């Protein structure tokens, strides 16, 4: 199993550009999550999904969109990039949300200039 994979690893965007961060897991997990981590800070939940076709907002959803058309994929979309979205983005998955291990991808380091 590859676990949770994320692409790209690094990206530089100009203000106003858009992009999609890809996340795929091969563990047949129902639950998937997107976090952002600013330097020296903890993880903040952006969006999460409890299964294909179902998504919900986390703590910091503004400026982002998600979709979950399959169990495996959970892409994160930035429509109008802003400098405040400069961060490291982690995708994670778990079989259930309650008392279950979250498996994290390697992260995408995004810089918006």
């Amino acid at each position: 199993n590859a676990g949770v994979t994320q692409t790209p690893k690094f990206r530089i965007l100009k203000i106003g550009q858009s992009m999609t961060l890809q996340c795929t897991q091969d563990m047949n997990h129902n639950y998937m999550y997107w976090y952002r981590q600013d330097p020296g800070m903890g993880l903040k939940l952006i969006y999460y999904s409890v299964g294909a076709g179902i998504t919900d907002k986390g703590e910091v959803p503004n400026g982002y969109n998600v979709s979950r058309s399959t169990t495996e994929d959970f892409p994160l979309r930035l429509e109008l990039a802003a400098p405040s979205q400069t961060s490291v983005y982690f995708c994670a998955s778990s079989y259930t949300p309650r008392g279950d291990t979250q498996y994290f991808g390697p992260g995408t380091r995004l810089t918006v200039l």
Partner: protein
Amino acid sequence: GQQVMQIPQYQHVQEGEDFTTYCNSSTTLSNIQWYKQRPGGHPVFLIQLVKSGEVKKQKRLTFQFGEAKKNSSLHITATQTTDVGTYFCNQAGTALIFGKGTTLSVSS
């Protein structure tokens, strides 16, 4: 939402010294998970505690869950440079909450 606080935020120790980080909640936790994130890496699951007063050990790491299930601690005995990183506590659930973590640095 439920707030999980970790202290200290930063800790520097000499190699061989002990280290402890604490995770505190204002409300009762159903469980507590601990994760470790190495510099430049991603969080990796270490352990989960569920029962009141539970204590689990992993080699030099000792994890405790408070009797009231409102706090937890991670203690590392005789730190090594490989222990460097940020340790996060988290209550698993639909509304996922990660504390800010404790960043440990170790000098040899």
